[in-house]
């Protein structure tokens, strides 16, 4: 098993005809993902990369039974794209777009309340269940099917961690990039819940970073609700306060936002802390061996 996406996932790509949309749709198809539809307003009725394109998500879902959406919509239009997919009843939206205004996301979150749609991202690398489905921009080849779940706020740091795991022969059930924004659609806790319930996930690797309090909330969940082991690393211990470190959400505004505070909370909750970002793989190996 895996979480969020698997071999039965029928993927729709919002913004399929753009340059990024095209490039990554092609990679997803090559990986074996079932890409069943694309949506670009004004280009409905055509085909792109062999995939039928629709003007609206409602129509695309009706005709293809799409069960998840991958979004490559420019930031100024992205919130509207999420709302459209939500209104159409899309079960899962994975939004890759970086740079969506925060107040647009405030409206999106308000609209998502009480609806069955789950949003991953924005500003994320996507979701990957190795050997089954790639719904994102991550490199396919570095992944290996297996039983470790990975959750991260970062893209390339996750690639590094995943390749550490793979090179040690440790496969992954699902890798979820929740994104680097201040208001992510899904939090660490949301995804930890899914991994805890997933029979095939034996352990979880969590990669946090400075800013916000999501790691502290994850620690709370780990200490009370999680029976599976968690390996964690929090990036940004050298980041100066008040400076935005690339990600919109990566800014230390109070003491809770510091890497040291987050690491402390996760450690106290029982997570095993990797001493450096280069040793997440080895730390996971030791944890798995002790099970």
């Amino acid at each position, binding site marked *: 098993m895996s979480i969020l996406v698997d071999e039965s996932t029928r993927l729709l790509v919002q913004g399929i005809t753009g340059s990024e949309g095209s490039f990554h749709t092609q990679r997803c198809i090559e990986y074996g993902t079932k890409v069943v539809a694309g949506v670009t307003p004004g280009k409905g009725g055509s085909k792109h990369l062999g995939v039928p394109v629709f003007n609206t998500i409602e129509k695309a879902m009706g005709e293809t039974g799409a069960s998840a959406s991958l979004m490559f919509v420019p930031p100024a239009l992205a919130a509207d794209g999420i709302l459209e997919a939500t209104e159409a009843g899309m079960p899962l939206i994975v939004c890759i777009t970086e740079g969506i205004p*925060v107040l647009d996301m405030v409206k999106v979150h308000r609209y998502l309340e009480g609806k069955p749609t789950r949003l991953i991202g924005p500003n994320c690398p996507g979701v990957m269940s190795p050997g089954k489905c790639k719904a994102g921009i991550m490199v396919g080849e570095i992944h290996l099917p297996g039983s470790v779940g990975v959750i991260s706020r970062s893209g390339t740091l996750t690639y590094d961690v995943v390749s550490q795991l793979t090179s040690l022969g440790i496969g992954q059930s699902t890798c979820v990039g929740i994104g680097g924004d201040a208001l992510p659609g899904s939090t660490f806790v949301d995804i930890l819940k899914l991994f805890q319930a997933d029979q095939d996930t034996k352990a979880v690797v969590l990669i946090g970073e400075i800013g916000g309090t999501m790691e502290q909330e994850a620690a709370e969940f780990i200490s009370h609700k999680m029976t599976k082991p968690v390996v964690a690393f929090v990036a940004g211990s050298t980041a100066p306060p008040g400076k935005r470190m*690339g990600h919109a959400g990566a800014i230390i505004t*109070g003491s809770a936002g510091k890497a040291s505070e987050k690491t402390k909370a996760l450690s106290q909750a029982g997570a095993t802390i990797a001493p450096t970002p280069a040793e997440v793989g080895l730390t996971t190996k030791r944890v798995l061996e002790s099970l």
Partner: protein
Amino acid sequence: MKIHEYQAKALLAQYGIPVPKGNVAHTPAEAREMAAEIGGEAVVKAQVYAGGRGKVGGIKMVNNPAEAEKAASQMIGTRLVTHQTGPEGVPVSKVLVEEASDVARELYISILVDGTSHLPVMMASQAGGMEIEEVARSSPEKVFKSYIDPAIGFQPFQGRKLAYGMNLDGGQIGEATRLMTNLYKLFVDKDCSLAEVNPLVVTADGRLLALDAKLNFDDNALYRHKDIQELQDKEQEEPLEIQARDWGINNYVKMDGDIGCMVNGAGLAMAVNDLIQYCGGKAANFLDIGTLNNTERVVNSFRMFVADPRIKAVLVNIFGGMARVDVIAKGIVEAYQQMDIPFPVVIRLAGTNLQEGQRILSESGINFIRAKDFYDGARKVVEAAKGVMK
């Protein structure tokens, strides 16, 4: 994005929020004229993107125009060092000259977006003039919050709750509610990330007045606010960071070490800096080159390193995903062709099109230090910066 206090107050005034009468002066002579216009007592305030001015001579009370001129001359042209700036401080090139206010009480209000509820939250406190984090820690009962539903906006009952929380009464309740409603309107209209009035004062004659104000804006929303973009004062920003942006490198932060770093991805870039410190070195910068596949940004990153006299060694750590390793390699070779690179460069490449990238580096004949992984790269660059490895 930040703006100056005088600009923030002008925006507040546009939204009907009372601010002290005043004007900005670029020279001591202008400050004198403005103080004369105000008549009597005035306050001269250095305009910088940093808090903590009062404690280091950045705010002065004056009794007449001559004193205003003198105070301004002591500020303009100097650099102000506060607990929020680095030791080099920030330049003062203008001052705000304002009428002095007769203050009875100091209060606090602010709006920001709360990461947990995903909603804007209005915070109010009767303990104004202090840092709100400190108040929240020492006396949490003095901080009142009201979460705002974006669909209906800030409501009068919320204003009343917060106003009573600040121990206001009578006509001040309605006045404070109007003020908060207007501040929320400004917050939403201009895509603020923070709108803070601290202190909001009650004057001796019972009026509310925004004595100091801070507005920060969401960088992701600036594209729809040309008027706000124009307010940016580049002089207040770190010169290397301005230079980076001019060269198309948006994610550059100056740090205080001597090892230049070029990385793709923000999380990986932070982790690289952490690892360098773990290995006994210190990064001179955070630099995420992003995922645009052209060599120009790579060449410009090297231009940044060459322009920075602190740099003793450079680490390039790229995990190709969206970014292609061969393009990065080509960029590095181009950089060597275009400029004299006086420091050792450690390179770690992985991911998309790795072999092609390796081939480009090998065939260039340039003497790089190659690293096999992330850790190896950090270790080698720390040694290189110490002159152990060349």
